[in-house]
C-alpha cells in the first residue's frame, strides 16, 4: 500500500468466522481502496452477510483483525454506515419513518443525548434524497418493500459516513427503487465514499459495481469488475470445486482454527 494506512477505508487481515464452531469464512485478506462501489458476490451460504457483520463486530472473529481507516472498528464506527437486510427488523414496530432515519444520527450523539434540531434537518434532507419526505410521519409497516428499503438507505445517509456496508439492498424492491438506489450509490462514490454492497444478482453486478469481491467461504477474487468478472473466476466462485472445500469443512467441524 502506498497510501497512508488511515486512508484505507477497510483492511481485513486473515479474517475467519465460525458459527457454532463451524467455519463460515476462511482467512480473508483484503484492502479496499477508497472511492469505489464494490459488489460482494457469491452463492447462497458463501458468507457474504457474515463478512459484513464480522467487520462491524456483530459476529466474533475466530482469527484475524479488521481495521477501518487504520483503526479498530469500535474506534471508527462513526465513519461507517450500515444498511441491514430488510427482513432483519420487525416492520410492525411502533416507529414512524422519521424516527428510523433519526437513528442514523445516534452514533454521533453521546449516551442519553437526544437528537437536536440539526439532526432532524439532516434526517429530513436524507429522506428527501430518497424521495420519501412525504412519508416522514408514516408508520413503517404501511410502506411498500421498496419504500422500506429507501428508509433504511436514508438512515444510512443520515450517518454521514465515509464507508458504507449494505446487506442486499436490492432484494424485493421495485424497478424504480432499484434505479433510485443505484443512482444514489454512484453519487456517494463521486463524493469519495466507499460502498460495499452484498449483491445476489450476477447479471446486474457487472453494470452496477466498479470492483467485485467474489466470495465463497474464502476470498476467490477481488479487483476491478472487468478483470474479475470472467467466466473462469465465476466458475471458481459458483462451480463445483468449492463444494469439496465445504465438505471437508463439514467433517472438520470445530477442528479448524
Amino acid at each position: 500500500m502506498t497510501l497512508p494506512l488511515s486512508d484505507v477505508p477497510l483492511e481485513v487481515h486473515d479474517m475467519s468466522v465460525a458459527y457454532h464452531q463451524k467455519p463460515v469464512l476462511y482467512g480473508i485478506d483484503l484492502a479496499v481502496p477508497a472511492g469505489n462501489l464494490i459488489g460482494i458476490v457469491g452463492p447462497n451460504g458463501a458468507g457474504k452477510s457474515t463478512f459484513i457483520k464480522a467487520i462491524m463486530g456483530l459476529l466474533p472473529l475466530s482469527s484475524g483483525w479488521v481495521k477501518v481507516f487504520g483503526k479498530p472498528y469500535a474506534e471508527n464506527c462513526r465513519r461507517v454506515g450500515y444498511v441491514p437486510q430488510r427482513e432483519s427488523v420487525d416492520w410492525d414496530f411502533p416507529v414512524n419513518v422519521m424516527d428510523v432515519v433519526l437513528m442514523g444520527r445516534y452514533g454521533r450523539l453521546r449516551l442519553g443525548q437526544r437528537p437536536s434540531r440539526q439532526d432532524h434537518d439532516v434526517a429530513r434532507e436524507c429522506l428527501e434524497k430518497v424521495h420519501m419526505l412525504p412519508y416522514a410521519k408514516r408508520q413503517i409497516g404501511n410502506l411498500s418493500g421498496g419504500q422500506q428499503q429507501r428508509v433504511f438507505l436514508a438512515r444510512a445517509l443520515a450517518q454521514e459516513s465515509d464507508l458504507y456496508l449494505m446487506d442486499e439492498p436490492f432484494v424485493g424492491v421495485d424497478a424504480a427503487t432499484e434505479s433510485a438506489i443505484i443512482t444514489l450509490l454512484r453519487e456517494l462514490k463521486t463524493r469519495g465514499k466507499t460502498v460495499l454492497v452484498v449483491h445476489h444478482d450476477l447479471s446486474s453486478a457487472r453494470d452496477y459495481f466498479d470492483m467485485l469481491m467474489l466470495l465463497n467461504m474464502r476470498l476467490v477474487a477481488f479487483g476491478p469488475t472487468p478483470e474479475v468478472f470472467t467466466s473462469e473466476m465465476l466458475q471458481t466462485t459458483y462451480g463445483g470445486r468449492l463444494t469439496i472445500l465445504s465438505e471437508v469443512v463439514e467433517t472438520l467441524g470445530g477442528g479448524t482454527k
Partner: protein
Amino acid sequence: MKARHPALLLLAAILLPQFAYAARISELTETGLAERAVRFFTLQDPSLRFALVGSILLGISCGLMGAFLVVRKLALMSDALSHAVLPGVALGFLWNMTKDPVAIFIGATVAGLLGAGLVQAIRNTTRQKEDAALGFVLASFFAVGVCLVTMIQNLPGGNKSGLDKFMFGQAAALGPGDVMLLGGVTILAVVIVLAFYKEFLVTSFDAAFAISVGIPARVFHYVLMVLLAFAIVSSLQAVGVVLVSAMLVIPAAAAYLLTDRLGMMLVLSAIFGVTTGAVGAFFSYVGRNLPTGPLMVLAATAVFLAALLLGPRHGVLSRWWRHRSRSARIGRENMLKVMYHVLEEEGFRGETVPLRDLAEARREAIEDVQVEMRSLRSHGLVTISGDGQAAVFTPDGWKRACEIVRNHRLWELYLTHAANYALDHVHEDADKIEHILGEDTVRLLEKRLNYAHRDPHGKLIPGLADIHSGGPARIHPAT
C-alpha cells in the same frame, strides 16, 4: 403456556382452602358496599392509602417495562421471570422468618435473574429453543417455590406468614416498606427510561444497527431485564406471582393497539397500568374476600377490549364504520352513474331522470330506488321533483357522476390498450376501480392514453369541461 397448568392445579389444591380466608383485603367485614366505597374515596384507612399508592406505582413500572417486553417480543419472558421468583420469595422469608420486604426483594430478584440466566444458558448451549427453555424454567422454579411456601405454611406459626398472599396478591397487605420499595423501583425505571429512551428505542428496533453505531445493545438488554425483575418483584405483594406478567403485558398490548410511536406507547401503557392498578385496588377493597391480582388483570383486560373495539385506527368498530361508510358511498356513486347513463341514452336532451327509468335500468323495485334517492338527496347530490317521481342532479352530484363515468371508461380503455385485456373482461374490474381512482392517477391515465375521448365501447369519456359544467344540459352533444 401448557407447562403452567399442572403447576397451577397443584397450587390450587394446596392453597385454595386457606385462600378464602387469606384473600380478604380488610378486616372490616361488617360494613356495606356503599360505605366501603365512600371509605375508599376518602382514604380513611391507612392500609388503604398504602394499597392505593402501591397499586398506582406498580402500574407505572409494570406499564413501562411491559411496553418494552411487547415490542421486543419478550412477553413470555415476563411470565417465566415472575414464576421463577417464587422460591426466592420463600428463601427471603426464611432468612429471618419475617416478611421483610428487603430480604424478600433480594431473594426474589436473585431467583428471577437466575431463572432468566438459565433460560439464556439452555438456549445457547443446547438445541432447545427459547419457548421450551422458558416453559421448563417457569414450571420447575415455580414448583420449587410452591413446595417451599407450603413448607413454611406448615411450620409453627407459618400460616400467619402471609406468604400465601404472594400467589394472587393482596394490595391491603402492602406496608410502608413495600410502598417505599415500589416507589424506589418506579422512580428508577422512569429515570432510566427517560435518560436512555433513544438507546432503548434503537436496541429494541434494530439491535444490529445499534451495535454498528457503537451502542452496547447487550448492556441495555440486561439493564432492561434487571429493571423488569425489579418491577415484578416489587409488585408481587399486590398482584401475586401468578398474574403479575399479565399486568406487564396487557396494558402494553392495549397501548400498542392505539399508537404507532414507542414514546406514546410507553405513556399510554403507564396510564393504563395506573388505571387498572387503582381499579383493582378499589374493587378489592369494596368487594370483600377478593384478591387484588385477578381484579387488576380483569380491569386491564377491560381496557384492552375497549382499545380493541374503540381504537381510532386499528379498532374493530372504526374499521367496521369505515367499511360501512365506504360501501354506502359506493352505493350512492353507482346510482349517480346509472342516472348519467339514463341521460346519456337520451342524448342529454333533458335534465330530469324519471325514477321509473332508473328502476328499470337497475332491475329494482321503484320503492328501493326511492329509498336510495333520499340518501342521495340528503348528501346534496340530487334534488327530487315535486311529485317524487323524478330526480335532477345538483352541480355536486353531476360532478361526481361525471368523475365516476370518466374513471370507469378511462380504466376500461387503459386495460384494453395498455394491459391488453379483452374487451369483455374489463367492465367488472372498472366497476370496482372507478370508486377508488385518485385525481393523480386519473391525470397519469389520461396522459398515458393521449387524452382519448372515447372508451373501448365507443362511448364519450366526460372531460374536465363536462365535469365543471354544473349540469347535463350544458354538455356538448354526443356525436
